[in-house]
């Protein structure tokens, strides 16, 4: 049974239509990539799932409709959405940011979850009292990921985690996402412009073009798909 299913989801910003009927699904335990050019509707798709934008169509998560509710509702149902720009609290300290992951109150035990996160990101413990604004871009992305993990999400949604990061940091980040998926069975929906690395880590992928799913398949298939290769992988 799919964990998340979108059925003919449409969205618009004022008069401009951003999604023209997107349908996709994410199964439990999968890493699914959402690829596409700028303006294809990748971010809007995630925003639709979190009810951060007006939509029509059906969005079912864990057997229940979650369309047109509220971001806090989605978060409390177990969707951890790390938005573009990471969505940290720049004035709060590293540790306070991490604590904010637990306030959605799905499952208790912050201390225990924090310990688990520190195993993945040991530096968080050493720099817990530093304001989040003083972290580097890569550290901010990792803190945002750590904060999402503290909430023990059923689905992790990452919006362009590689944006503005050095290639080695991107590798490091995706290695951790892969490890989380393999070790803990974490389900991930990741939006990326960097199709190369997204297809390496994901098991299936969707390519969005002007607000619609243009291509879908397993990541292996997409890596061999001629159109995808030319447009997004660059060879």
């Amino acid at each position, binding site marked *: 049974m799919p964990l998340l299913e979108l059925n003919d989801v449409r969205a618009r910003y004022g008069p401009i239509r951003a999604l023209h009927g997107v349908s996709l699904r994410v199964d439990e335990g999968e890493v699914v990539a959402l690829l596409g050019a700028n303006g294809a509707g990748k971010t809007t798709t995630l925003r639709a799932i979190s009810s*951060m934008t007006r939509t029509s169509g059906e969005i079912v998560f864990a057997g229940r409709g979650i369309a047109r509710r509220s971001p806090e509702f989605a978060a409390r149902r177990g969707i951890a959405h790390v938005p573009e720009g990471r969505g940290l609290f720049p004035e709060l300290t590293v540790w306070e940011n991490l604590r904010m992951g637990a306030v959605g109150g799905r499952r208790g035990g912050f201390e225990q979850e924090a310990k688990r996160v520190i195993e993945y990101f040991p530096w968080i413990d050493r720099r817990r009292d530093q304001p989040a604004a003083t972290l580097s871009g890569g550290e901010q992305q990792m803190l945002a990921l750590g904060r999402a993990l503290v909430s023990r999400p059923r689905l992790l949604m990452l919006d362009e985690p590689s944006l503005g990061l050095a290639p080695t940091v991107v590798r490091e980040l995706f290695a951790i996402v892969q490890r989380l998926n393999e070790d803990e069975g974490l389900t991930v929906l990741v939006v990326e412009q960097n199709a190369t690395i997204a297809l390496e880590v994901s098991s299936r992928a969707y390519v969005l073009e002007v607000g619609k799913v243009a291509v879908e398949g397993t990541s292996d298939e997409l890596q061999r798909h001629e159109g995808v290769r030319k447009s997004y992988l660059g060879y």
Partner: protein
Amino acid sequence: MAVPARLPRIDLSVGPVLRSLLLGVGFIVGAVAVLVLLGLVLTQTETAFSWSGYAQQIVSGLSQGAIFASLALALVLIYRTTDVLNFAQGEMATFTTFIAWSLMHHMSYWPAFALTLVIAFIGGAAIERIVIRPVEHRPEIVIVIVTIGLLIALNGLSGWIWNPEVKAFDSPFSNGTTEIAGVVISYQELGVLVVCLATVVLLWAFFRFTTLGLVMRAVANSQDASRLVGVRVGWMLALGWGLAAVLGAVAGMMAAPSQFLDPNLMLVILIYSFAAAVLGGIDSPIGAVAGGLILGVLINILGTYVDFIGGELRLPAALVVLLIVLLIRPQGLFGHKVVRRV
């Protein structure tokens, strides 16, 4: 996969609690230094100058300033969470002070005080839910006009319910004075100072040490990010308005005994409090408190030692000082520069 090692960094940051303490101590040391210097100047210019009289003026100023500080903190609290300058803050305080006055006919002072705070909290939260929430996403000017409307409505309402004539308001503190190191201090002023500062410290502890306080700081920092981690932002805003109303109620009940109670009790105090909040930096809670105390001391010293200012020109004098500070430091003493990304 092992996470690659990073270059070690030297961490010069101190913990948030220690940072606030250092800032507070630094502020007090600086303020004392300035006051001593000012006193030394006054010994040369004033023939009848005495250090004990000077100290007395400072204590009076601190006591008055503590009231400004409470109301200024209420303004900052709402500004930080809702991005609104709440022009009705003073009238909300007056209204709750009238409620306290009525309650005091039925019970003794402190129970009435406590019950008033509870009522203020509920009332403040209710105002956010009922009056502010419907215009929440409108342009700022709309919200400002709504708060001004609220000011007029509450002012009229308290005149209508309690009659506009002035009323005596009880003080919990005795009328006497005490002498500390040659400085005569009235219990009234000392009591006001202690109650206001205790409220501020309690509030600070709430924001610093409780999870709910953390969540409210997060909402003040970013509402979108708060929603994405599951915070019910609407309720946090109501909570912020409730706490601001509590601060206002404390300020009103502390101000009323020395000025009598009427519907315009907080009118001038609100202006001083706006000045204090802007002086400290409108986004800085520490700044609001410091700004209130500075302003209180300043207008007392100016009013006492500068002959032509006297009692009448205190308010304009305070605004001149504010203007000078803002010309030198536009973000206020403790505020942050506003950086807008385009």
